[in-house]
């Protein structure tokens, strides 16, 4: 973070233990910068929704503190919440209400005077204008999700939270959603979104925070993090078992399986050279015959384990 960019949201040591005894957050601290898109990446149950809920006032923290532009979200909640729009993970809408009414309601609820021209803009941007008089229950799932976004944008928030905006959304709509997020960013909105997918975080975010089991493992510029996340492994099955690795292959830092039949090579898909071509040539040069080759993306879980190990190894 450069000294010029003030954080719009400052999260300090946030913990949350639910009444059921589950601790969903173990001391999360994070600064969110003005105008950035930050993706919170993590598997089911990581604590993403809990974190967002606390910032937005939907849940209470067990300890710790959040400020939005300097306003404490508990003691100065009016000022803090007025700046925020929230699109929840679950589709929750009044089924019998016409679209326009629920959007108008949202704007009023946040204390903004009625402005139908502005609502028209929002609804048009989300391709919902034609559906404005339809009752919510008559809409498709993707449209309902867009209604939720329209509601969140109705009061012109400076900060937008999108909790899994693309869950249950088809490819085309997903692209549109990404486009919309970029437009909002261009207008100066700060955006925090959550996702399960590395690719989605990569496509949309400036920075990525990886969260698992209630801990924020890393927060980094997307490009930096992708280098760490973009690891793949290649498993090479040999015709004949090998007792030990030939010296010529040492630079590749291969792992030899116990039965001597499999070699595992780790490489980085984002690097300019993966080293695969040379490795294969050197294998042939060392007289090893290959039966099969298999490559796989490191799974999210593997990456978490890796990250966790790396973080722990740091002084």
């Amino acid at each position, binding site marked *: 973070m450069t000294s010029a960019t003030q954080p719009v949201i400052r999260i300090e040591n946030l913990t949350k233990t*639910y*009444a059921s005894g589950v601790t969903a957050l173990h001391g999360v601290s994070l600064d969110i910068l003005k105008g950035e898109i930050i993706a919170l990446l993590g598997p089911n149950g990581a604590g993403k929704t809990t974190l967002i*809920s606390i910032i*937005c*006032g*939907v*849940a*209470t923290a067990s300890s710790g503190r959040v400020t939005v532009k300097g306003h404490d979200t508990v003691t100065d*909640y*009016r*000022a*803090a*919440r*007025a700046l*925020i729009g*929230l699109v*929840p993970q*679950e589709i*929750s*809408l*009044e*089924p*019998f*209400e016409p679209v326009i*009414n629920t959007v*108008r*309601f*949202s*704007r*009023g*609820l*946040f*204390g*903004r*005077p009625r402005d139908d021209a502005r609502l028209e803009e929002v609804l048009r941007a989300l391709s919902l204008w034609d559906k404005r008089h339809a009752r919510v229950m008559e809409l498709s799932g993707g449209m309902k999700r867009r209604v939720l976004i329209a*509601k969140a944008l109705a009061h012109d928030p400076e900060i937008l939270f999108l909790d899994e905006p693309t869950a249950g959304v088809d490819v085309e709509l997903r692209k549109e959603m990404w486009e919309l997020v970029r437009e909002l960013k261009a207008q100066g909105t700060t955006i925090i979104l959550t996702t399960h997918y590395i690719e989605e975080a990569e496509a949309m975010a400036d920075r990525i925070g990886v969260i698992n089991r209630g801990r924020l493992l890393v927060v980094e510029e997307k490009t930096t993090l992708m280098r760490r996340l973009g690891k793949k492994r290649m498993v090479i099955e040999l015709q004949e078992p090998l007792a030990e690795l030939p010296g010529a292959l040492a630079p590749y830092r291969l792992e030899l399986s116990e039965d001597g039949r499999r070699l595992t090579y780790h490489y980085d898909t984002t690097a300019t050279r993966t080293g695969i071509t040379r490795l294969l040539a050197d294998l042939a040069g060392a007289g090893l015959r290959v039966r099969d080759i298999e490559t796989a993306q490191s799974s999210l879980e593997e990456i978490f384990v890796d990250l966790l190990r790396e973080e722990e190894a740091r002084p």
Partner: protein
Amino acid sequence: MNWIAILAIYRFEMARTFRTIFQSILSPVISTSLYFVVFGAAIGSRIAEVEGISYGSFIVPGLIMLTVMTQAISVASFGIYFPKFIGTIYEILSAPVNFIEIVIGYVGAAATKALMIGVIILATATFFVEVRIEHPVWMVAFLVLTCISFALMGFIIGIWARNFEQLQLVPLLVVTPLVFLGGSFYSITMLPEFWQKVTLFNPVVYLISGFRWSFFGMADVAVGASFAAIALFTGLCLAVIWWIFRTGWRIRN
């Protein structure tokens, strides 16, 4: 005060009422008419008068109270339970509003609907019996306060309830019996001595008695006591709601 937000909640809730306006008006008209047919004609032929007032007229205030109380509770409890149930409560919780504003919006809308129904019943009653109102200002005061306080109670029930059964439970097991036994259809002086004493522990007796006094100038209990009872009840509900929002009980999480 965030009046825009209050108005937004109030309007949204009232829209729910007006969407079903026909049903909202028709059902109290029909049920009132039935009460007059059953109680007025059947029982009224045996009890000609209660303390100098024809039985048909005598039951009008009780009938209004009965309906207004149950309606205020059911509308208000449903009004806040439904967003909890379908999850739209997130928006209320994330909005820059305080609990007083939320309560004014929801309770105000429920009380308005109850009041509307009360007025409809009163109007319907005039088709069947002669209704005179001796203290109209007090009548309005009692009616409005009853609508508000029972809507407050409904609001609490709606937040407390974890499912639809619980939502019905308190009205069914507590409120309806208290209202029926609270002298809606009889003067408590008609009861044996012992039961008259027991009845005085029923808070609804004070409300109905005070309301009836505003019509006919006669009451089972002192009017001051009636007014104190309803003020106390309103205060109690407000205190509970204040505590609910302070602790986030059954709403945040």
